[in-house]
């Protein structure tokens, strides 16, 4: 692979009606400079966190430079301005995920905190000894460990839906475990370790029929495809801003208003109260009840800017773009001997995340050679150790696509695989 000029802006379009990933790279300053080895940066780690477009960085800097003050209680121009922008971001998020009301949008740090909030607040109020919770074997640790802690604390039982050899949820097992009457099913819409897209709308319907609430971990789906909580029908949804072009330190819990209204606070302190006496406190309405202390003000505003950027492209187009990259990469990797790809074959149920292993080469070594080639991928258990256990692997290498990737990046990926095999094979 030759060294290419930084962020070449072309008008080449990938796929009908979609945009050019090559051109979009010009929006992301991280692509301006070559890597230490003088290579063009091929960033294939969106699933861990995404680069930020200039529009988001500038929105953040502008918020800090000219519109920053603490929110909600300041009777002066700057605070009113900051508050209006912060609450405007909440409305943008509501629109992005189809929430009926922005009052259902709780700002948290990340998807992990969103899930912990539900586990602590909903879980400790609604779970009794002997109750069941259901999650799946393909979850990120963020959607496993909080439920393990919760069920251990209250004496409830946690069950896991099994996964098939090609990384899909085993729907028979799901039906069987729903029949055990869990109070809640927590599952990812897209697996970060396998790329699997779960049919969350269908599953939610099954779960509701069985009397279970449904929490959807949208950390890997919200950045990459259109999301509509009404269409999914779920009860809670969690996402992270940093995976969808937004700042770090900001994430979202969405919950149905009537559920949130009935939930006690998680963290307590300023802003989330109505009245405090030495005897006790009276709590504010949702979503404020769940936002104790000074929130990530500018980061929420930055997330709003990220949503504007995504909306301008169109989430349908983003999904279509990544599907094409997936298809090409999946096929190309399939042609290289010694490559084992994980997850489903069908592009309808596989997002732009490809986990793979190279025969006889440890994924850490793969990533090191890739890095040398300018290709940034992740290697490890991807915070999904039960998936690794399921396939008896210590780790995998994972390439994940986003809107700034193009077919050159797919070629870089397969070139890097060959280069790695050469180092270790020759």
């Amino acid at each position, binding site marked *: 692979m030759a060294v290419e000029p930084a962020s070449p802006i072309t008008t080449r379009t990938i796929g009908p009606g979609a945009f050019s990933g090559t051109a979009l790279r010009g929006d992301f300053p991280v692509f301006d400079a070559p890597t230490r080895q003088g290579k063009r940066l091929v960033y294939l780690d969106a699933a861990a966190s995404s680069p930020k477009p200039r529009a988001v960085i500038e929105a953040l800097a502008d918020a800090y430079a000219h519109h920053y003050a603490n929110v*909600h*209680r300041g*009777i*002066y121009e700057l605070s*009113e301005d900051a*508050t209006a922008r912060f*609450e405007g971001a909440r409305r943008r998020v509501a629109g992005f995920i189809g929430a009926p009301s922005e009052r259902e949008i709780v700002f948290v740090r990340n998807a992990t905190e969103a899930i912990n909030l539900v586990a602590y607040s909903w879980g400790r109020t609604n779970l009794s000894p002997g109750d069941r919770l259901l999650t799946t074997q393909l979850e990120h640790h963020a959607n496993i460990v909080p439920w393990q802690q919760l069920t251990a604390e209250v004496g409830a039982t946690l069950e896991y839906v099994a996964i098939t050899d090609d990384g899909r949820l085993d729907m028979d097992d799901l039906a069987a475990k729903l029949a055990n009457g869990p109070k809640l099913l927590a599952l990812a819409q897209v697996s970060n370790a396998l790329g699997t897209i779960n049919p969350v709308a269908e599953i939610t319907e099954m779960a509701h029929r069985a009397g279970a609430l449904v929490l959807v971990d949208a950390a890997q789906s919200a950045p990459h495809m259109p999301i509509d909580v009404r269409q999914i029908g779920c009860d809670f949804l969690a996402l992270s801003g940093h995976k969808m072009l937004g700042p770090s330190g900001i994430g979202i819990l969405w919950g149905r208003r009537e559920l949130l209204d009935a939930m006690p606070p998680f963290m307590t302190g300023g802003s989330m109260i*109505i*009245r405090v006496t030495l005897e006790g406190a009276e709590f504010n309405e949702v979503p*404020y009840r769940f936002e104790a202390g000074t929130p990530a003000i500018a980061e929420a505003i930055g997330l709003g800017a990220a949503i504007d950027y995504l909306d301008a492209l169109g989430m349908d187009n983003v999904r279509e773009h990544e599907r094409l990259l997936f298809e090409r990469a999946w096929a190309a990797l399939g042609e290289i001997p010694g490559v084992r790809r994980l997850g489903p074959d069908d592009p309808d149920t596989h997002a732009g995340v490809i986990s793979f292993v190279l025969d006889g080469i440890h994924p850490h070594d793969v990533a090191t050679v890739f890095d040398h080639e300018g290709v940034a991928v992740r290697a490890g258990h991807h915070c999904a150790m039960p998936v690794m256990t399921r396939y008896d692997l210590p780790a995998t290498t994972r390439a994940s696509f986003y809107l700034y990737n193009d077919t050159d990046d797919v070629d870089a990926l397969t070139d890097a695989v060959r280069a790695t095999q050469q180092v270790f094979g020759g």
Partner: protein
Amino acid sequence: MDNLYRDFILEHYRNPHNKGVLDPHDLHFADSNPTCGDEMSMSLRLDDGKERIADVAFDGRGCAISQASASILTDDLRGKSLDDVRAMDPGELLDDLGVPIGPARLKCALLSYKVLQGAVQGGAVAWPEEAEAVG
């Protein structure tokens, strides 16, 4: 100070109309402004048909905006039917105040409206949308 605090706002603040507690009363409700903790109550006496407002009073301490707003709002209530009150538009009260109310003061200006609605609807109501925008 231009029109930030018009004389008539200050006049209502210094000498509020309809201040106190009606005893006996038919309806009573109290609520507070979460941004500052100021509390306000309202007591209403109805006519014999229990359909229209015969008398009204508000009570509680607060800022000039909330006190003037309550004074102005209550001045206008006698003779109104409960249905009319329920249908009242909070925007009109803001207009009646006649001064620009910044977003951070909207809850001050609309606390009286919220308390009144709580009284005639038999329980706490949500803040009008105007006052929600900035949390």
